[in-house]
């Protein structure tokens, strides 16, 4: 009996670690392979996909930059993501303040509508989004992406920020109210500093989403000088049909910023995700 118990316990522990390591290797191995391959020569890569580079070919990265004009694309992605995030978090925190702090007719309906927005299959709205931006003359203009990204991220950002605001008692502000602080002053001097970590959470999440967005960047812009990095790496598949290693270098360049931001704000990404999803 005792023997059986320890036997099954050993089996469980082994099974547990097999699973843990399987998923870890599955996730990490292709990424490591990508980085190693991006440092090989094409000849080395064709000869054996698993070999290590004899000499790390840092030139592949320079090649990728030069041939595909990656610098311009990174610049586009940075400005689009930055403006999209600032707009989004500003607008979402204003609305969340009104909904979280004041009782008025229809506030829960408004909030429920926004929350339902999380589930809308945005990819199905290609035609209307295209028509809207076509009508206001913003097709092939990065402004369309900035506004669109700010808008489509609103439901999740409002969810996150409202959650943080709700977790602070209204009494703190009531004291401020007695001191004669008005609606706007309370927002800027009391509520925003209190929910700072909520704002960072929403912003991190939003920035990564903007940085990675492909479908609408692809649909709404066409000029080469307006390409974002995600569109850029996709065009490598046409340009470098033989220069695989430079293509892999470009992919590495494209994913480094999101991984970097993720590692810095890891706590925020994970807590933001759960705040938005568990209640939704």
């Amino acid at each position, binding site marked *: 009996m005792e023997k059986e118990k320890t036997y099954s316990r050993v089996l*469980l522990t082994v099974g547990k670690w097999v699973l*843990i390591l399987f998923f870890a290797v599955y996730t990490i191995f292709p990424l490591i392979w990508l980085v190693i391959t991006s440092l090989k020569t094409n000849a080395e890569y064709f000869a054996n996909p698993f070999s290590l580079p004899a000499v790390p070919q840092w030139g592949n990265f320079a090649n990728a930059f030069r041939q595909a004009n990656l610098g311009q694309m990174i610049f586009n992605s940075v400005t689009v993501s930055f403006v999209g995030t600032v707009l989004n978090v500003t*607008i979402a925190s204003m609305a969340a303040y009104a909904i979280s702090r004041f009782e008025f007719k229809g506030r829960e309906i408004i909030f429920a509508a926004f929350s339902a927005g999380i589930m809308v*299959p945005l990819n*199905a709205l290609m035609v209307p989004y295209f028509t809207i931006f076509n009508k206001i003359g913003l097709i092939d203009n990065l402004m369309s992406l900035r506004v669109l990204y700010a808008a489509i991220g609103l439901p999740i950002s409002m969810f996150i920020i409202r959650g943080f605001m709700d977790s602070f008692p209204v009494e703190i502000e009531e004291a401020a109210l007695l001191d004669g602080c008005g609606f706007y002053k309370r927002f800027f001097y009391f509520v925003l500093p209190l929910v700072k970590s909520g704002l960072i959470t929403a912003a991190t999440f939003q920035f990564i989403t903007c940085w990675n967005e492909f479908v609408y960047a692809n649909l709404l812009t066409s000029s080469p000088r307006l390409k974002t990095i995600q569109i850029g790496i996709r065009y490598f598949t046409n340009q470098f049909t033989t220069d695989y290693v430079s293509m892999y270098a470009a992919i590495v360049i494209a994913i480094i910023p*999101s991984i970097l931001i993720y590692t810095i704000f890891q706590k925020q990404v994970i807590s933001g995700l759960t705040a938005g999803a568990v209640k939704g």
Partner: protein
Amino acid sequence: MKVSKKERLGIVIFLLPALILFAVFFIYPIMNVVYMSFFNWNGISDATFAGFKNYIRIFSDKVFLRSIKNNIVWALAASCIQVPMALLMALILSRKPKGWKLFRTIYFLPQVISGIALAMLWSAVYNSEFGMLNGLLKLVGLGNYTRNWLGDPKTALICVLIYGLFYIGYYMVIMMAGITDIDETYYEASRVDGANAIQTAIYITVPLIRYSIVTCVTLAAVFGLRTFEQVYLLTNGGPANRTSLVVLYLYNQMKNNNYGGANASSAVLIVVGACVIVSIRKLFTKNED
């Protein structure tokens, strides 16, 4: 907080930008898609009323039907394979084995990498000439099994679908948060009753995080319906439309200036998505009584 007159103006001003963006980019587009799906439109000249013709046309198009079928397979695979795997790992990692934080970070990593970069990475894995998968097969002496994974109609769909299924971090994190919220007294009670780890997981943890599980199943199904990048980049629907999905279908309709057909397929997607969400919720609340 009670609202004074002065504050009422502030509330309106603060809500307005969000409401305008929401109206323009959520409410109007959805209504517009449904309305315009009853019109013939090439994007340039005036739209003409078409009744149900767009719907009849797409539903008699084999490619559209296959796309729907593929989307259903995709949604089912995500909710019935990916989410249970994520649940299993959430149960394991929330017992805090050595290095659990590191593993959580690793599992979540694909979530922050763009879908297009991941798809390109996997196209390198599946590449028939220099691909990692064929290379691995040769390495372990299974050279007979090498093939053009994405070009073979037998394997194309499973290949574009399967690689994302093992990226479990997103759902795992949601369910782990649910597990953290469970009151410690439940576990103390089960310990007193002499339950082992597996019994505790099945009878205590899983029922208590059912909200998180339902959320994950819903999200997985919805994401399965709106998938686009993987297929667009890896196969563009080929070979012979074997891997087409509804969003890719509507994208191609749009590119061919058949906006009516595109809108009808969008409308189908939105309605199916809404039905899926509602029925998962219904199914779940019924179990609760």
